[in-house]
């Protein structure tokens, strides 16, 4: 199946020269992309990688001749198949979009129109272009669904977006991009919102179909291991500038720049696990449910040793966050009990004493929404000092300073508002707020998931240091195996509200694995361009060992 538009493989398809893009914020224009070049040949896949704010999405959209509201392409040239996109009128560029250049967005759930059936959206641009009749386009769409290994390919298109899972939606979106047989597809973080186990399948489908149609692609992500599976070459961006670009294997084997190496820095922390003494928290055969119907927690038992870290891992919907809610009393268990220092805690938050509340603190994934935007850092950290410890005036301020120094910030932060802090700084303030109560146990719910790699590393190192100095106990909820390796002593694996495995880190992370743990571990992308291919081969052969 070839595309009549496609020229020879190896011809230059996209040539972006010295692209400068401005973004409008704080009442003025800032350069957010500062003179980047991209050259892409037909059939080639280029990975654009960088942390948030690197300008990679903006650059990806610019390849379509598109700038978001509040952005403008100020200079440079974008030659697509020999035509200058910037010299064209908006109407001419519109005619290319969705036909010769297609886009796959990060959140499929938000990017599909809730009011239309999937197949209608899949064929929309193809039918508008008029190269296929609606019936032909729909038949082709069903074939694409089948190629992408969607379940029920003949009928799934009749469903509405909310009726289909996130991983399936992402594949339908790939079919939508492929429907007009474009020359170029921009994948903008297409698997970032997916669980690792789902991500593998989606990545595999995308890789297969892009190779099948010999489509050129720009693959945007912040995850180097993911891009390593997809791309022929990789370009590393930071603050809108190119740091380094090279062929994928060369980049992975021998990154030239320090910054590139730092992109997989979290993977470099590996905590020495420790066996432990007394049990500080015991979750004893707990059931819980939200509306009295399906159990979200089913007979969950977890033991947490004092001064150590227990990581709870699992995909979304596995009940790991619900376990935290049951422990803190936000969601009283319907069966079983939670013992803290050997004594049963009252099931509901309201029935617990201030002393019991003080001993267990929580840190959340979204530091943004976990702080009142109209409180200063002083108010945010000062509140638990007053509430739990009754500190006032001078004593309170002294303790406040100690805490701020403990989280490696300084006095100058005390009167700032959350909006004046970076993502990592916000999470540090949340840590200080938890510490202010002098807790024995801190529950960390995906606290590093929203952060860039380097910042993640800083936060994890801080948590480890605090644990050593203050003999803190952590329950660390995460879906990221690299984070688990970095911080945990023990691991609890959850699936569909049950604990499927628990034990010391070394035991869980080494074979033999129970079935689900193996699926989870083997799905985590590795820094090896052959990893995905190897994994799929191993899985299809039904072999028990992965490529590692």
């Amino acid at each position, binding site marked *: 199946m070839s595309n009549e538009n496609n020229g020879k493989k190896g011809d230059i398809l996209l040539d972006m020269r010295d692209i400068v893009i401005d973004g409008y914020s704080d009442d003025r224009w800032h350069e957010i992309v500062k003179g980047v070049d991209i050259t892409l040949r037909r059939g080639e896949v280029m990975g654009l990688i960088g942390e948030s704010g690197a300008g990679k999405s903006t650059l990806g959209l610019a390849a379509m001749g598109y700038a978001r509201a509040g952005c403008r392409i100020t200079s440079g040239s974008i030659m697509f198949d020999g035509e200058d996109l910037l010299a064209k009128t908006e109407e001419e560029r519109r*005619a290319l979009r969705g036909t010769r250049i297609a886009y796959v967005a990060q959140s499929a759930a938000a*990017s599909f*129109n809730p009011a239309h059936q999937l197949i209608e959206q899949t064929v*929309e*641009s193809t039918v*508008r*272009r008029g190269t296929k009749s609606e019936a032909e386009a729909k038949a082709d769409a069903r074939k694409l669904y089948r190629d992408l290994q969607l379940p029920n390919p003949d009928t799934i298109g009749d469903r509405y977006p909310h009726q289909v899972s996130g991983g399936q939606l992402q594949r339908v979106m790939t079919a939508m991009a492929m429907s007009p047989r474009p020359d170029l597809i921009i994948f903008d973080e297409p698997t970032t919102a997916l669980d690792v186990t789902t991500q593998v399948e989606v990545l595999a489908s995308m890789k297969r179909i892009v190779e099948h149609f010999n489509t050129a692609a720009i693959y945007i992500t912040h995850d180097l291991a993911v891009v390593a599976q997809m791309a022929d070459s990789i370009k590393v961006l930071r603050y809108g500038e190119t740091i380094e670009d090279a062929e994928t294997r060369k980049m992975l084997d021998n990154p030239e720049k320090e910054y590139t190496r730092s992109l997989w820095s979290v993977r470099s922390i590996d905590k020495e696990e420790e066996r432990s003494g007394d049990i500080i928290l015991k979750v004893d055969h707990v059931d819980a449910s939200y509306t009295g119907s399906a159990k979200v927690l089913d007979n969950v038992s977890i033991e947490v040793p004092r001064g150590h870290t227990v990581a709870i891992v699992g995909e979304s919907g596995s009940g790991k966050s619900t376990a935290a809610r049951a422990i803190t009393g936000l969601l009283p268990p319907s069966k079983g009990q939670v013992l803290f220092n050997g004594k049963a805690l009252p099931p509901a938050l309201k029935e617990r004493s201030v002393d019991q509340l003080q001993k267990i603190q929580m840190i959340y994934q979204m530091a943004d929404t976990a702080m009142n935007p109209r409180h200063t850092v002083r108010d945010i950290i000062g509140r638990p000092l007053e509430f739990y410890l009754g500190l006032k005036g001078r004593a309170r301020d002294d303790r406040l300073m100690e805490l701020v120094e403990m989280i490696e910030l300084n006095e100058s932060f005390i009167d700032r508002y959350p909006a004046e802090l970076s993502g990592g700084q916000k999470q540090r303030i949340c840590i200080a707020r938890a510490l202010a109560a002098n807790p024995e146990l801190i529950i960390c719910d995906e606290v590093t998931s929203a952060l860039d790699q380097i910042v993640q590393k800083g936060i994890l190192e801080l948590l480890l240091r605090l644990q050593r100095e203050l003999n803190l106990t952590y329950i660390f909820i995460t879906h990221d195996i690299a984070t688990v390796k970095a911080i945990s002593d023990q691991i609890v694996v959850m699936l569909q509200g049950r604990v499927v495995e628990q034990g010391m880190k070394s035991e869980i992370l080494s074979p033999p694995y129970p079935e689900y743990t193996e699926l989870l571990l083997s799905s985590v992308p590795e820094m090896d361009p052959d990893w995905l291919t190897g994994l799929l081969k191993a899985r299809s052969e039904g072999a028990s060992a992965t490529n590692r």
Partner: protein
Amino acid sequence: MGLIRDNRRGGTVHPVIRTILQRLGLGLVTLFVVSLILFSSVEFLPGDFGEAVLGQAALPETVAAFRKELGLDLPLHERYFEWLGGILTGDMGNSFSGRGSSGGSDRSRPVIELLAPRLANTLFLASMAAIISVPLALFLGITAALYRNSIYDRTVNALTLTTISFPEFFVAYLLILGLSSFTKIFPSLANISPDALFWDRVYLTALPALTLTLVIVAHMMRMTRAAIINLMASPYIEMADLKGASKSEIILRHALPNAWAPIVTVIAFNLAYLVVGVVVVEVVFVYPGVGQLMVDAVTTRDVPVVQGCAMIFAATYILLNLFADIISIITNPRLLHPR
């Protein structure tokens, strides 16, 4: 989401039907509560119909006899249930007027007989105004969203705001001045007779209908525009843009289908106003509608007529809101097509 899940457990009935039946039941309960409030509040009004009709000088015995004849001496709850039972069987009781002064013979008319032709007139005028204003508001709202911040958008916004800012009677007099006094296109009086032909009615009610249109179009148009623009920042709108959809396609195909719920709510609100709130326009154009009937009934303390009119108004509100709810539900694919 909660709603969907609850419905899924409900069994075989389609969740949309279930929800609609729920809303219908809720509407009936509301109407019942309204009838209760209405009946008791009229009861607690100061003054007495007997005294009002017979005059301050009437002997207490005469007043008492008159009250007895009307059934006003019975206990409150008995009268309430009798009245409610009557309404349920289509009988709203008899008007108070026409009684008393004439002595023995009863020349009073059933409320329904008074109300029915007036209601027909009111609904006719409301329909005229709705047929003009709803499509006009939608058209203006959609085009204003399409050409957002253009001169067109600003002009439409300014004009509709102007018409809504004037009092109704002022708009009415301006129209009379322009379209009746100077140009003689339409008559300034809309006192249609019961046997008027259809096109004569249309001709006669043109000016009041136009007045009402000018009064309500702004609200609906602005909500249409706002509901669409509110969706324009959604990721799926950007996706449509990146799929090469034109601006009008984006608005009509991608934004509008998701914008119906707020738009329909405002339309229902304004349609209810067309039935319930038009008394000023009726007075200006001497139009024989329910509003005038009710005002007259209030001044003569004709309690059954007041209660009848108020019940009609309440039912209109509840019915139109129910209608808006149903449209919101069936334009929401999450409810229409549960997982």
